[in-house]
């Protein structure tokens, strides 16, 4: 089936944002339409408004720029009073962060955890979202409400039970399954695997995918069905290629969330060889309060990938958040 047969996607607010992929926020037309004789005053007002806005934007950016500036300093430089730029540029902060304080390892761990969670969210949320959008099965609406309801369950309520399950139950289930021959004699989940396991898919990913699938016209699937394609094949060959924008939003938001994640890693990662960057930063801060250059270097490391993603995929971030806000 050629792409030229794909009809335009119907306008459903959130999904349209994603599909259009453009300005997620078109400003409402200016209310101050030009009143004659006011031009000079308006121009001055505009100038002031822009100045104030750039100042505010600068205020938002200064902490980040300051941390970058500090990450290139020597420790002595940070103690020697104020200077805008480092007196002696050095990368020793990064060097220390990587080699002395193991942030290379932490970066890798963060990438593994965030990567695994993102991939599994993409897969499970798109499959589940497709099921909730298209498959007819008894209790579908109830189940979907149940999934959405989980968004209301605070993590701290789940803390103790989840920990208990990961430390006692799930390993014993594995033991019952008799997977010892796979080398899983005492599988532990109070570690990186546990962090990944409990975040395999999130309700908001599922919700986003379902909403997007609902906007795709049914004709396409009917055509696939006539061609004798199974549900799974339809999902894979027809729906998935159309869901690009939604997949992008889910992937990016999931990656961002799990890259920054603190709560579950703080609970489950107990061996320092598995720390993620946020946990590494937290531990570092408890141990060496004022070694600013490596700490700032580590912070820059934590922020940089997200900044990169944000610059490239800004529209997906905005549209994704807006779409998940719609449900409120």
């Amino acid at each position, binding site marked *: 089936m050629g792409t030229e047969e794909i009809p335009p996607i119907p306008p459903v607010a959130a999904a349209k944002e994603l599909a259009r992929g453009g300005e997620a926020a078109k*400003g409402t037309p200016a209310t101050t339409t030009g009143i004659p004789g006011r031009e000079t005053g308006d121009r001055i007002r505009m100038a002031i408004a822009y100045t104030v806005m750039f100042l505010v934007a600068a205020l*938002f950016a200064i902490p980040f720029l*300051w*941390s970058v500036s500090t990450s290139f300093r020597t420790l002595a430089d940070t103690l020697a009073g104020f200077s805008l730029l480092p007196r002696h540029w050095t990368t020793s902060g990064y060097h220390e962060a990587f080699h002395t304080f193991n942030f290379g390892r932490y970066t890798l761990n963060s990438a593994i955890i965030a990567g695994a969670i993102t991939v599994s969210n993409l897969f499970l949320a798109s499959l589940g979202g497709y099921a909730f959008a298209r498959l007819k099965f008894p209790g579908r609406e109830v189940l979907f409400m149940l999934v959405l309801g989980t968004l209301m369950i605070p993590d701290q309520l789940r803390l103790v*039970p989840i920990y208990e399950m990961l430390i006692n139950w799930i390993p014993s289930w594995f033991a019952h399954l008799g997977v010892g021959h796979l080398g899983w004699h005492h599988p532990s989940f109070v570690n990186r695997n546990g962090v990944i396991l409990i975040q395999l898919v999130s309700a908001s990913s599922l919700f986003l995918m379902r909403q997007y699938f609902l906007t795709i016209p049914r004709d396409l699937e009917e055509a696939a069905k006539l061609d004798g394609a199974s549900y799974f094949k339809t999902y894979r060959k027809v729906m998935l290629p159309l869901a690009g924008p939604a997949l992008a939003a889910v992937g990016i938001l999931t990656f961002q969330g799990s890259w920054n994640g603190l*709560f579950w890693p703080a609970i489950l990662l107990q061996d320092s060889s598995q720390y993620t960057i946020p946990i590494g930063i937290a531990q570092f801060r408890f141990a060496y309060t004022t070694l600013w250059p490596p700490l*700032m270097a580590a912070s820059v490391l934590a922020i940089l990938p997200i900044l990169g993603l944000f610059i490239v995929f800004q529209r997906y971030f905005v549209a994704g958040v807006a779409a998940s806000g719609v449900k409120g």
Partner: protein
Amino acid sequence: MAFFLLFFIFPIGYALYISRYNWQIFKGPYVGWGNYRHLYHDTIFWSHAVRNTLVYTAFVVPLQMALGLTLAVVVNQSIRFRTFFRAAFYFPSLAASAAIASIATYILASDGLFNTILHHLGYHHTNAWFTQENTALPSIVGLNAWTTSGTMMLFYLAALQAIPVDVYEAAAIDGAGAWRTFWRVTFPLLKPGHFFVLVVSIIGSLQMFDQAFLIGGASGGPNYATMTVVLYVYNQAFKSISFGYAAAVGVVLFAFIFTVTLIQRLLFGRAEVA
């Protein structure tokens, strides 16, 4: 589905179950409502964790809403560099809390950037803001109002765009100025937006953990000044190894958040009918 049942729905019941036991890492003797009775008399919980959480929520929620709304109105105008401004305002919400907290600690340190600026303005403040009992919590309020305002801005932006254009045209024809239009037209029409942002903001604040953990450590120092309810759950579970008790605290917090949501929904529902 099984995933959601296993890791979301089931833990509620399991938490209730655990909370009735003197449970350490493994199941201990049944204590009935003992954990809850203990919690009722727990002064650290009430006069630090709960108090701090409520104070924090009371200050940070209005700040977040006001900042979010202001930024949203600004970036909703047809101005140049709109995308740039929106990105600049939104980005702090995306950066890792651990990184933000470190940067904030550095800037608010005793000889940090903030005190240096204050010094040049003629105020002499020489203490680190996060380590003093009386400034630690307000500093976290300021920090989080700043970082979350971008998210609130996006929610408000979506709400602003739901307002039909002809309403503004009508206001312009009636000769209403920008200020008056905002307060008389935009602000009341944003009611669904206000409600949504309020709920998200309150629920988020009641669950504040990251910054308290990063800045005050698991014990919520200095002297419990940054102890929050969620941090207390963590602390009880992993410092005191009393899982049963931690579960009880979690159940109480969940009940509280659930009640707040219900009340808000009822109030809002009624207001909408009226």
